[in-house]
Every structure is written in structure tokens, then in C-alpha cells.
């Protein structure tokens, strides 16, 4: 089976971390865009198609939760995976209540990360599929009226 790359936006102020995880995810066939702040993340989402955002909770300036709210407001179909470097599972759970797909604790297990990425992508695909079908039905009904 040919792997369809998940378009990942990796957001963390830890430059080295972003760099290494990007290399690794790209190597296994994903397509990663790096971002180093919440603001940059939102900018990129405005320009590029992204499936899943991997979002660090603790960042200077706009933090993960704030960024998440903004993502869900402006790009509701994009799935978000929270990444917590400081054990605040509560914040991650709060994030999930705000619409994040799941969370991972740093340092995250790579296989677990990939699995969750896959699932997040699947959820987005299914949602988009449903939207397409609904649109098709809408179109059909409209044309049926004629």
C-alpha cells in the first residue's frame, strides 16, 4: 500500500526538537511543516493545507491552549494533537474538551505518536468525506427540484 503522507504542522518553541522530529516524521513518509510559535502556526494554517497540528502546550507568547482555541475557531476541520512537556495532563485534557484530538507526553513514544497521527488523520478524512457526501446530497436535491 502506498503511504499517503499526513500533512503535519509541528509547533514547538524548542527548535532542536522540531527539527529532529520533523526529520524523523518525514523519513517515515509524513510531510512536516515546522512552526516555532502559536502565531506562526496560525499564519501557516492560513496559507497551507494541513491535516494534523502537533501543538506544544507550553510556549512563550501565545500558549498552546490559546492557539488551539484560535485553530478550532478558524480551521475547525484541522485535527490538533497536544504535546505536553511538563506533565500538566489537566491542561491537555482541557485541550481535548476544546476539540483537540488527543495528547502526548514529552518525550513521546514515536510509535504512539505515529498511531495517534494516523487516527487523527483518519478522523479528519472521515469528517471531510461526510461533508462531501452531504454536499452531494444537497446538490442532488437541488437538481432534483428542477
Amino acid at each position: 500500500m502506498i503511504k499517503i503522507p499526513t500533512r503535519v504542522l509541528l509547533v514547538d518553541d524548542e527548535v532542536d526538537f522540531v527539527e529532529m522530529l520533523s526529520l524523523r516524521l518525514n523519513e517515515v513518509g509524513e510531510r512536516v511543516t515546522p512552526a516555532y510559535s502559536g502565531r506562526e502556526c496560525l499564519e501557516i494554517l492560513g496559507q497551507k493545507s494541513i491535516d494534523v497540528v502537533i501543538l506544544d502546550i507550553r510556549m512563550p507568547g501565545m500558549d498552546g491552549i490559546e492557539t488551539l482555541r484560535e485553530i478550532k475557531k478558524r480551521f475547525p476541520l484541522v485535527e490538533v494533537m497536544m504535546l505536553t512537556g511538563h506533565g500538566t495532563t489537566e491542561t491537555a485534557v482541557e485541550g481535548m474538551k476544546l476539540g483537540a484530538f488527543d495528547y502526548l507526553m514529552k518525550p513521546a513514544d514515536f510509535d504512539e505518536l505515529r498511531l495517534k497521527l494516523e487516527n487523527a488523520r483518519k478522523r479528519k478524512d472521515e469528517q471531510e468525506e461526510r461533508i462531501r457526501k452531504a454536499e452531494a446530497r444537497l446538490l442532488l436535491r437541488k437538481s432534483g427540484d428542477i
Partner: protein
Amino acid sequence: MSDKKDDIKLLLVDDESDFRQALIRRFGRRGLNPEQAGNGPECLAVLAARPVDVVVMDVKMPGMTGIEVLARIKEKYPCTEVILLTGHASTQDGVDGIKSGAFDYLTKPIEFEHLLSKIGQAYEKILREAEKLKEAEFRAKVEQQMAAAERLASLGTLAVGIAHEINNPLAIIRESAGWLTLLLKRKELSDFPGRKDFELALEKIEKGVDRAKRITHQLLGFVRKQGSAFTQVNLPELADETIELVRKEALDKGIAVELKVEDPVAGIWSDPYQLRQVLLNLLTNAVHATAKGGSITVMLRPLKEGVQLTVRDTGTGIPRENLGHIFDPFFSTKNPGEGTGLGLFVTRGILGRLGGHIEVESSLGQGATFRVWLPQRHEPGIDSVQDDYANILKQIKGEQLP
């Protein structure tokens, strides 16, 4: 020692028997019953058998003089006060005596009332000194406990801060090692001569990161704030589920795990996830400490206002010198890499938050028994790290938790 003057223990030392008997009769009329001795060595022998509060002693005695005896008394019984009796013409003896530690001296012929009041004063001094000593001991003990609590609290704060900060670089190390591992799998590197060595080293890095991660996550688990996870908990069910988690490991080692529930164990209002963590920590320790053929028993017993949970194993037991440390952070007797030394520390922290407490009973070779008390219902207070440390502080001070 009593503070009633009638109970003053007195010893009268004089080589003149008549003088002694006369004085003792007069003491007797005042309700005092002094011991007596005719010379220095006899006096020391009496003291050795039963120390007294006040010694009234003649300075001029054949053999050992009063001053010599005084020095011996002060050396061996610093709390005993000595009143010297000197001859009329030898006040110098009295002065020397005071310099050597006598309470005071009286010149013969003595006035009995005067002697009595001196004895009274000497006794008051003894009481004052004893009080001061007790106070100093108490202060030293409290200060020591405070220092230990503060050390633990600041150690905890520091450790958590470090754990926070270390997770990020750990993630970088893990990703870098993971990246290299992936690179080595590339086709063009399949003939790379040092590949095996690289893979070995990378595996070691992964393992090291795992180990460090366990530590940081457990530390953070210790201060993890509590959400509204409180709910009705069915303890027998929770115990059963948790036992299942370690059952396989126990079976592999040939250890039987048994759950005994004394009916009726009512549901308690608590946090099931944290309780599971507590039980899991205790069970894992028990499995690690128990050898093939041993057994682990989990017991649940209803109490008036809660439940007692007991985990007993037939393992190696805990040596006495370790019993006081097993709840300290980073205290571990397992091999490096196997234990983080945080399990019981975290367990106690969690129980403090749940309004319970834990005790251990063990001796070497006799297995160990951990008893956990859980309240029927606990309303969590303000969740904060400070709360945990306050609890630890209380535990150190030996207070019972609410």
C-alpha cells in the same frame, strides 16, 4: 523526681555518727528521710545504687575529703546538688567547694532551719535545670523535624522544577536518536560497516531516555493537580482490576496473588485513578520483593469512617534501618534503572491528597505489610503543591492526617 518538697531525695554524709543521727531525727520530724553515709566512698556507693537530688556533706572527713567527693559527684551526677558543711574556722573550704560546683556551704554548728531552706533552694534549682533541659531537647527535636520537612519540601520543589525542564531536552535526545535509527535503516546505509555498533549505542540512548522519562513523569505525577475526578469508588472491583494488571508478572515469578474482602466494604468517595496508582505501586513493589513460591494478599476491611486496604507480601522484607526512609524521594534499594525511588513517595503524596495515610510494618525476611487508611468521603481542599508538602510536614511531625 517530683516537685513536692517532701519527696526530695536527700543524702547526708558525715563521719560523726552522732551528728548524723541527730540531724536525721530532725529531718524525720519534717517528713524527710535522708539516706546516710559515713565517708566519701560510702557516699559514692549509695549514689551508685540510687542517685539523690541533694547531698549534704561534711568537708572534713578522714580519707576522701568532702571536696574530693564533691568533684566525683559532679562528674558522675551533674544534676545532683551538693551542700557542704564546713568547720567554723574553715570558710575557705566552703568557698573552694562552691568553686568546684557545690550549691552552697554552711558553717557548723548549723542552724537547722537554714539548712532546710538551702536544701529547698537547691531542689528548686534542680527543677529549673531539668525544665530547661527538657525545653532545649524539645526545641532541638522540633528544629530537627522542621529542617527535615523543609529539606524535603525544597527537594520536592526543586525536583519537580527539574523534571519540567528536563523533559524538553529529553524529547530532543529521543527524537535525534530516533532519527539516526531511521537513517541507519536506509538502503544506502545497509552496508555501512559500523552499523551494528551504532544501533547498539542508539538503543542505549533510547533506554537511557526511557529511564529518565520514568523519573520525570513520576515526579510530575507526585504534584499532578487533581481535577474533579472524585466519584463513588467500588474498592473490591478496583482492587480486582488492579491485581489483574500485575497478575501476569506475578504468575511468571510463581507468586500467588489473593484478594480478601471483609464484608461489607461500602463504596467510598474518592479518586479511582489515583487509588489505582496507589495500589499498583504497592503491588508492583510486592511482586518485586517476593520470591518464587511466595504470596501477596490484598485485604479490604470496613472501618467506621472508611476502609482499610492492606497489601501483605511474604517477600524479603525491609531492614529496620530502611523503614524510616522508604517514603523519601529517590530512596530505592532496587538496581539502578529498575526503580526510580519515587513509587512510595508518590503513593504517600497521593494518599495525603485523598485524605488517607499509609503505614508500613516489616522486618527482614518476614515480608512486608502496607496498611492504607482511606476515608469514607474526602473533600479535596485547594489542590496545590503546598498542600502536599503541608501533609508531608504533618506526617513528619507525626500528626495523624485528617
